[in-house]
């Protein structure tokens, strides 16, 4: 019996390994391209003949890469903090507090992701001009400060919390906010971690809106900066690849930090 389980586990592990090789292959190719000299990028081999860091050098020399990096980081961090708090709070209220009109509120919020961003950028821009926040961090970040996606996610997970847990908290004298902050939130940590990862990533890679609202070179975020290398039916792919390869690093760090929270969730829920 134990033998049987062990063989099965090994089989699954093997399949996972094969799957992951297929999964990361295009990514490896991207990194490999970024290490190739311009003349060699059309060579289809995965391992560069003459690997070089020259593309990275050009990127740092030709472009204010650090500035782009910093701008993206500030915007992504700010929106993630805002979303983590506000989306959780709204999600909690929609899942655990009963009040008249709750369904309508949820439906209105949900309906806001039903229109593509492409059609929102012009009204956003007109509004930003009126408020004088174009070309600023606030201007870049504001559309993402609260998200329907996150509210929906947190609502789904909060709904799964046993009401007894909250009742117990109330007995202990916790107020409404205390119930959310001390009981509900710690118990949905896996979902909160996932939300943080997605929010950071989404804002880190955001392009459609930042490119409209940013005018000055000093405000450019990473995706906007990298887009400068593509023009007129031609892309400087080796630079795009190098830029994209570095851009992945902070997101992976964020992922590495938060994915531990997903595991910690086990012990927490396991205690119940």
């Amino acid at each position, binding site marked *: 019996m134990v033998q049987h389980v062990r063989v099965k586990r090994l089989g699954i592990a093997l399949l996972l390994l094969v799957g992951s090789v297929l999964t990361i292959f295009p990514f490896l190719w991207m990194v490999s391209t970024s290490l190739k000299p*311009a*003349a060699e990028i*059309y060579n289809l081999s995965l391992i560069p003949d003459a690997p070089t860091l020259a593309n990275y050098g050009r990127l740092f020399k*030709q472009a204010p890469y650090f500035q782009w990096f910093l701008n993206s980081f500030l915007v992504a961090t700010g929106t993630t903090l805002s979303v983590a708090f506000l989306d959780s709070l709204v999600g909690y209220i929609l899942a655990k507090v009963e009040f008249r009109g709750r*369904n*309508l509120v949820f*439906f*209105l919020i949900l*309906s806001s992701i039903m229109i593509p961003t492409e059609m929102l*950028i*012009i009204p956003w*821009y*007109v509004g*930003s*001009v*009126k408020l004088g926040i*174009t070309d600023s961090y606030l201007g870049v970040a504001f559309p993402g400060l609260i998200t329907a996606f996150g509210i929906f996610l947190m609502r789904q997970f909060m709904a799964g919390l046993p009401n007894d847990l909250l009742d117990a908290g109330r007995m202990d004298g916790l107020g409404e906010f205390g119930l959310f902050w001390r009981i509900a939130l710690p118990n949905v940590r896996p979902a909160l971690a996932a939300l943080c990862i997605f929010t950071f990533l989404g804002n880190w890679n955001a392009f459609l809106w930042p*490119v*409209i609202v940013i*005018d*000055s*070179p000093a405000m450019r975020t990473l995706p*906007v900066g990298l*887009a*400068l290398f*593509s*023009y*007129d*039916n*031609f892309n400087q792919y080796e630079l795009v690849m190098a830029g994209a390869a570095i851009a992945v690093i902070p997101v992976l760090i964020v992922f590495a930090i938060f994915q531990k929270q997903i595991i910690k969730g086990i012990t927490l829920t396991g205690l119940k």
Partner: protein
Amino acid sequence: MQLKMRRTAALATSSALLLTLALAGCATKSDGAPKSGTPAGNEPVTIEYWQYFYESKKNLVDQLIKEFQDKNPGITVNHVTFPYEQYNEKVAAAVSAGKGPDVINLYYGWLPLYVDSGYLQALPESAFQPATIQKEFFPLVDAAKMDGKYYVVPTAVRTLAMLYNQDLFKAAGIAAPPKTWDELVDQSKKLTKRDGSGKLEQVGFYFNTGGQGHNWYREVLTRQVGVKPLSADQKKVQWGSDDALKAFQWWVDLQKVHKVGEIGFMTDDVTAFKAGKAAMDVDGSFRLGNLKDVPFNFASAELPVGPNGEKHTMASFWANGITKQAKGAKLDASIKFLQFLTQPDVMERWTNATGELPARPEVAQKFANDPKLKGFIDGLPYAHATFFVDEKKDRQALIDAVDSVLLKNTDYKAALQAAAKSVQADFDEYWSKRK
């Protein structure tokens, strides 16, 4: 619960629709009222200049602005650049917000759209004499004229020519690039390489539609079988006529019959040529900037001639115009800046920095012996700039026509006619609103 949700949704939807209709009913005109112009005077003035980001252009313009500001104290030029692909989005957002540039760099093919809507001002004749422009610039610049007035004036222009890889030509024992359609076919066959399984390893001629292929067909190949692509009044599409069919068929047969090139080989023509895997490519002079460090020798040649023996090429340009934003002192400053950008010595520096061709013959002559520029410069006197109603749709129509012959075996004539018909519909709509 279920029912309640449905009722809630229905309520929300219907109230949203009602609100929309109410909003729609009360406003028919939403553009902000035009702002009153600033009084002209000597007080400092700031104007905004927009162009898409192209490294060498951006650096040169930064330098030029510095010189311009030194010569014109009191005028500050704010230079804004953005990614090429997002050009239209930036303009759309800026226009909607009543913000944006005073001087804008735009593709000449978009002029009808910009002029008809009143977004561009006609250039004042006092500063830009039509007769002088006519005399001092290449005739193709006339495409910047609408209803007899100039709306933009270019610093540089581009033409199509044949880029060819001299090393590959030498290896195949071919002395000179093709002078005629037939030579193009023969040489391409010699220069095309496949492995045993039929896998294409090198194309003799890069057959494409999306890059410059559609321009080559529309403006060059049709003329070389004696068809003018558009009627003289620019109302009728003629590149889809029966007479043009043999040009279309010859063009498509490069891939379909002769198999000397293939759409999508190594993703696009620029990439394949740069990798040394395409011996010939019809492309624009703007490409030279990207071919600076290639590890092989190449040159440009005039496009080959067809059955009627006539030389033609297609010209295009990005040009600078003044928007309706600029009034009073800003308008004066914008005019000065525009004049500065079109001076002969600026043109010369422009060509040196970007590879784009000077818009004035006197400057162009200075570059006539550069082997990389020669094919493009030689074409300037006989180059035509196409009139577009909707540049993107015109291009897509021809791309689809060729794809349907190649991928769906559609009859040449049917495919070409379908393309011309859809473009004609856009033309009809455009002209019906312009009476």
